[in-house]
């Protein structure tokens, strides 16, 4: 990453179109909390008009990094270059808070340490009262008394799928990039991926030694840590000789498929081309060939920002859901659920407002279940419903397919 952001900021025509799509600006109407404003701040930094301050940091952290503005930008500004530079600048000039720094630098790169730390947490959580439908109170926010997150799994996905099933004549062999949320919390999503792909005669391996994709650290501007993680992941996956790599996490997919091209350089391209979101993969390689017995529940779909706005994927997951359930569309399916990273902690009130909108959209759709393709969104939306004691279930779309396949027959010959 170089100085390319300095020229990128000049491209902004200040037209204001990002006002229409920015989920944060929709809530605040604050020019400092929309891409155009942040770009002008970056310009001022470039021109040495300002320096890094707490206020500036808060404005930089107010970005959801959904990248929706980039998709609609008439002047073709690559906002991601600018926001990454700002985040990096914040980290370099103001430092990263100690706890995240320890986690990014020393724990995330060391799987055993990470496991141990979380194992301790999972022991502790047993003593925490007040669980609701599998969700418990978020530790740092315990005293805010509002937030519900799911409990940690006893056995991580990596541990559970150390040895996956070998198929006789698999038509493909793919690797699963689990990502942290699926590895530690939503192991059932990993299970669904393995199960579904196996049923489609696709062999799945879960390469051991894979680490966090690096989003948490890069989103706090800790480029160094992110690069370290990327390099380890490269080694782990390059050596496997896989036909494809899939992930059920929209953010991880975006990071390893797209951001790694910048972090690791063009040599990552051959691998990057083989990385898919799970629904994207199924749509591309299995098409309409599989047979299902759709479940009766009404299911709607929430578009994760990193899948829809970064990668333009919207039909593929819907296609999977239409084949496996009684699918209904919700209004504003592409609007951000508010979940994700440091934003939810620093701008907790905004997170809640965005979540409220999302929950209302889902309720209006009349769905029994909301499916999505990102464990981060699953966690956020489930939190919204847990707080309301709602009957609406939140799940990953692959889990809906898993249930529909359990009901039907698979035509393996094709």
């Amino acid at each position, binding site marked *: 990453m170089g100085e390319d952001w300095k020229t990128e900021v*000049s*491209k902004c*025509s*200040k*037209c*204001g*179109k990002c*006002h*229409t799509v920015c989920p944060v600006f929709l809530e605040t*109407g*604050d*020019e*400092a909390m929309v891409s155009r*404003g942040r770009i*002008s*701040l970056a310009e*001022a930094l470039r021109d040495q*008009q*300002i320096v890094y*301050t707490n*206020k*500036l940091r808060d*404005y930089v952290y107010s970005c959801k990094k959904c990248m929706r503005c980039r998709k609609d*930008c*008439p*002047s*073709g500004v690559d906002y991601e270059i600018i926001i990454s530079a700002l985040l990096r600048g914040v980290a370099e000039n103001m430092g990263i808070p100690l706890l995240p720094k320890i986690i990014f630098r020393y724990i995330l790169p060391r799987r055993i340490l990470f496991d141990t730390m979380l194992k301790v947490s999972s022991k502790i959580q047993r003593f925490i009262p007040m669980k609701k439908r599998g969700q418990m109170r978020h530790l740092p926010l315990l005293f805010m008394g509002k937030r519900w997150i799911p409990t940690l799994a006893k056995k991580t996905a990596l541990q559970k799928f150390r040895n996956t099933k070998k198929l006789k004549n698999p038509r493909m062999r793919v690797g699963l990039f689990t990502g942290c949320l699926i590895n530690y919390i939503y192991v059932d999503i990993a299970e669904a991926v393995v199960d579904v792909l196996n049923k489609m005669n696709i062999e799945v391996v879960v390469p051991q030694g894979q680490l966090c994709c690096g989003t948490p650290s890069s989103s706090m501007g800790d480029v160094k840590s992110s690069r370290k993680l990327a390099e380890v992941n490269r080694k782990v996956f390059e050596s496997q000789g896989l036909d494809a790599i899939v992930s059920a996490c929209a953010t991880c997919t975006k990071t390893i498929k797209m951001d790694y091209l910048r972090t690791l350089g063009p040599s990552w391209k051959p691998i990057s081309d083989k990385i898919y979101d799970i629904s994207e993969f199924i749509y591309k390689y299995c098409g309409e060939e599989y047979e299902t017995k759709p479940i009766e529940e009404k299911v709607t779909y929430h578009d994760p920002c990193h899948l829809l706005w970064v990668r333009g994927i919207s039909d593929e997951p819907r296609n999977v859901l239409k084949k496996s359930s009684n699918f209904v569309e919700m209004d504003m399916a592409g609007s951000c659920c508010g979940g994700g990273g440091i934003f939810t902690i620093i701008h907790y009130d905004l997170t809640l407002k965005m979540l409220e909108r999302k929950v209302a959209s889902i309720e209006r759709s009349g769905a029994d279940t909301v499916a999505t393709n990102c464990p981060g969104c699953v966690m956020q939306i489930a939190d919204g419903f847990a707080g309301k004691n709602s009957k609406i279930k939140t799940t990953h779309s692959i889990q809906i397919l898993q249930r529909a396949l359990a009901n039907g027959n698979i035509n393996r010959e094709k």
Partner: protein
Amino acid sequence: MKLFKKTKKEETKGTKALNELIRVLGKEKVLSAIEDRICYSYDSTKQKALPDIVIRPDDTSDISNTLKIANKYEIPVYARGAGTGLSGGAVPLMGGIVFDLKSMNKIIEICPEDFVATVEPGVVTKDLQDEVAKHGLLYPPDPSSAAFSTIGGNVAECAGGITGLKYGVTRDYVLALEIVLPDGSVINTGRKTLRSVTGYDLTRLFIGSEGTLGIFTKITVKLIPDPERIDTLAAFFSDRDDAIDAADLIIDNNILPRTLEFMDQMSINAVRGYGEVTIDEDVKALLLIDIDGTEESIRHELSVVENACKEKKALRTKVAETSKERDALWAVRRIISPALYNVATHKINEDICVPRSKIKEMLQKVDQINEHHTVYIANFGHIGDGNIHVNIMYKDDPGQEELAESIVNKIMEEVIASGGTISGEHGIGNKKSQFLELEISPQVFAIMKRFKNFFDPKGIMNPGKMFVT
């Protein structure tokens, strides 16, 4: 003016004013951190000037109180909607106080039976349009920026937009205004009735006054029943003149389309690849036409329009089949202005309006002026009204800016000679103030200045705009 630096005297003045503002309005409405000031320093002209204070008012009294203080200390004041203007209207050229009116964005009332709506200035135009549409009503003025610009800004600049030929411009829809004058006093002009002629038309005087006379705090607009249906047709031409002829022929056939938009080759090149519309390489000009009305009337008018295009050698025409297709076509038209930055990094944005019979000639003159293609010029706009956005794009290279400016000068002279105006809808701001006297006689200019002095004797309202000071 840098309120907090410069001379000692000014420093005390600025500090005093700031303290007073904080005392009267409360800390959370008064922003003075550099990070905030930067975010309110620009508009869509890409100009920048740093304000000293940003005020985020909640209501009329916040604005009135601020103006009283600003007037007392003679501190410049600027109204800002979404900062999407194209003439510099919201740029705080002389420093001072910027009002971020986005914080006043309530739709106060929609009275479907009365065909009126009253809003605060910070309401986004499209939000109002969407809200009244729920009642089967239409607020017709529709600038390209409608999805993000505000009603307050639209009224201050008297925005026109794409529906002007059939429905008129912003001034035709404003019925009443609540205005805070520079001394902090509040007046109400007009009436919330569809007609009123009581006294002088102060409402119209303030519309298009570009924030130089007062600040709107409530705006009452007229609505009309929403047409049953809109159909959109795109016609592609291999020759610019053919497209202009086709536009003429459509109107000659007594059709008054809801919109009649023109794009030349450079504009098409700038947007090619955006969204889901593909435009073939052989297309050198394009007309984008909306017809609204009832199903029967549209069918008839659409066939007249299609025939007119074919008669004028359109390569092909395409009627949007779905609302998604329609939106995609319009998305392309609406983003031309910012998309031009894909052509070159600098832009001078003109929005001339000439009698429709002079368009062809005018565009030829523009070609001649830029004979050696030293800069890039894109022409697009509301051809039915004769309102053409002439955008001069140039690169960072030395000498380019001067060149672009000399080209603009020549174009402006031609526009005036052909009976046209230097601004159809963007306003004068500071970007066009040097040309105002080309169009307006010294006497009329003096009258305008007297109006300004009458309302704003201390010259605190949006200084540096409209008049060269």
